């Protein structure tokens, strides 16, 4: 089975996101970068499926040259190969252009049975690239997967559990498919020293627009219909109040406050 895992490098949540007050853009320099948390589950699931059914896992990312670090982590976790999409022409991509560019990279990789993405990235929080990519590739779309029950490679079937609002849906479809995964699907492994060394030695090709068989007008800023026109820091939450006193008194004060604001009806 040939599996592609799409990953994104994002600023660490621990780091404070700051804005450049003059330019009105985000300051990304000096902020620690990590693999998007949901993508770690995607990598792990790809590697586990490879261990179960055989085949290979290829990690793909689009981003600046330092996104190679994210791909190295995927390799250290057990991915066999990696490719980085990095070029000035890809800069400024929104979700439409990103899904388009990734789809061309996946087509370049030949026959693929399964693409795995994290549910969403923690910087943009859009959850749009997975479904967009499935449409571009013409693959079956399986979002919010919390368990892969079974894959039948000969019959080209996959059975998954999807975490929806009211419960878990068990769905079967045919391969090739694209699934986005949630945290519940597995516990990502910590790479050991040997695998980290192997990852460090693995060559990661960098692909630009000339390496992809696509429409140049659909890349990067030009291919992105949405434009961010303003970013701002939301007003901080109004100062809170610590309720003091003995427990029954404190609770009474709280309930009075909540019912006077009609948050609870008692």
């Amino acid at each position, binding site marked *: 089975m040939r599996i592609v895992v799409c990953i994104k490098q994002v600023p660490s*949540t*621990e780091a*404070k*996101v700051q804005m450049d007050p003059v330019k009105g853009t985000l300051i990304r320099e000096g902020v620690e970068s990590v693999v998007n948390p*949901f993508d770690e589950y995607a990598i792990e699931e790809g590697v586990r499926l490879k261990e179960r059914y055989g085949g290979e896992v290829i990690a793909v990312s689009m981003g600046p040259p330092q996104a190679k670090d994210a791909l190295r982590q995927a390799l250290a976790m057990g991915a066999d190969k990696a490719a980085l999409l990095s070029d000035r022409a890809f800069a400024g991509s929104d979700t*439409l252009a990103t*899904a388009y560019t990734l789809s061309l990279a996946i087509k370049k990789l030949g026959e693929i049975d399964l693409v795995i993405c994290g549910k969403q990235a*923690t*910087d943009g*929080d*859009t*959850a*749009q690239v997975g*479904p*967009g990519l499935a*449409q571009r590739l013409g693959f079956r*779309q*399986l979002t919010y997967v*919390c368990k892969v029950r079974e894959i039948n490679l000969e019959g080209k079937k996959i*059975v998954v*559990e999807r*975490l*929806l*609002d*009211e*419960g878990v*849906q068990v*769905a*079967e*479809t*045919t391969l090739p498919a694209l699934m986005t995964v*949630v*945290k*519940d699907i597995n516990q990502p492994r910590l790479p050991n020293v040997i695998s980290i060394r192997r990852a460090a030695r693995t060559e990661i090709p960098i692909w630009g627009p000339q390496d992809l068989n696509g429409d140049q007008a659909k890349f990067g800023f030009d291919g992105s*219909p*949405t*434009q*961010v*026109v*303003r*970013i*701002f*820091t*939301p007003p901080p*939450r*109004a100062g*809170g109040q*610590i309720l003091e006193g003995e*427990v*029954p008194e*404190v*609770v009474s004060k*709280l*309930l009075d406050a*909540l*019912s006077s*604001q009609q*948050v*609870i009806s*008692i």
Partner: protein
Amino acid sequence: MALKVIKERCTGCGLCVQVCPYNAIKLSDENVAEILESCILCGQCIEACPMKAILMEEKHGEEATGYRGVMVFVEHEFGRINHVSFELLGKGRELADKLMVPLCAMVMGDGAKDMAKEVGAYDVDEICVVDAPHLREYQTNPYVREAENIINEYRPEIVLIGATTLGRDFAGALATRLETGLTADCTGLDIDLEKRLLLQTRPAFGGNIMATILCPYKRPQMSTVRPKVMPMPEKVTKDGAHIIEIEPISTPKDLLLSILDFIKDTAGTVNLADADIIVSGGRGIKGPENFKMLFELAQVLGGAVGASRAAVDSGWIPYAHQVGQTGRTVRPKLYIACGISGAIQHLAGMQTSDIIVAINKDPEAPIFKVANYGIVGDLFKVVPEIIRQVKERKAKSAVS
């Protein structure tokens, strides 16, 4: 610019081939019109096509013309309409009025005509209805195909979709098929009247930053909108909306998934996305057995139970309850955090709640910085006391 043939609509009648002065159209092997390189975009075929199957696909700056109106996607689960769709009808009305254009809704499902009546109770001008048995339960492929067909026919300038589990599965696929811009999880929508553009405002980086996003050249401008942010509109008693029945273009063969089973979440009676009140537990709960107390509090308040990552990773409660960066983002009217320190990853999932109450024994816990009301104390004393007093007040009000 280029011409685009909507394959689903082309009947292969060949009228376009006859009118083309440049022999730039032929019928393909599948008997569908195909535009050739020699096309000079005169547009005669667009006029000639009785099925409206040929469209001019325009480049930047020119594409925005020819689209008019605001369209709301009505989401439902087995015929039960999600409240976010009504909220969008309210917001959609406001946007449509500013632009002085009609507000439309699209409803698809088995029994969609009945759902359209419910939708028509609100102030909406037109409702596009696709009623077919195979649309009973949402699936990406047939729903996206029907929506694409409706949008290509009615060409709304704005399409609004709920930023729900279902809505985000649907919107990402639909926007890609339409090759237009989509802005996720908006919490604010307005119109720039001068440019007639939709101003879409949304949180990013877990709510630390807000961004306003435009889709200047492509149409429709599409947004998913976070539930419970826009107010519910009033119902109206006027002559009802104009119902437009549309023949389905999808068939049961378009159901690409076989649904083998659905395992309902038995732990929570109300799901987190819908709950007005959420009672959440963290590391301070100390063990799975103590979540019973939170379920009881949630029950007396009529809410749902959430949890921090620490509680979920300790195996005390299933992942479906996790609130935060790697769990769900929630925005209830009331969020009660019990024994949750308030790590930034947790705050990212709940800091836009209307009112936050924090109960924690550590006065330095960061959760108190976002809480409207803080109680520094032992949650094992405070929570049972809240339950007791709520029950007492309810009993009193029942008597009086």
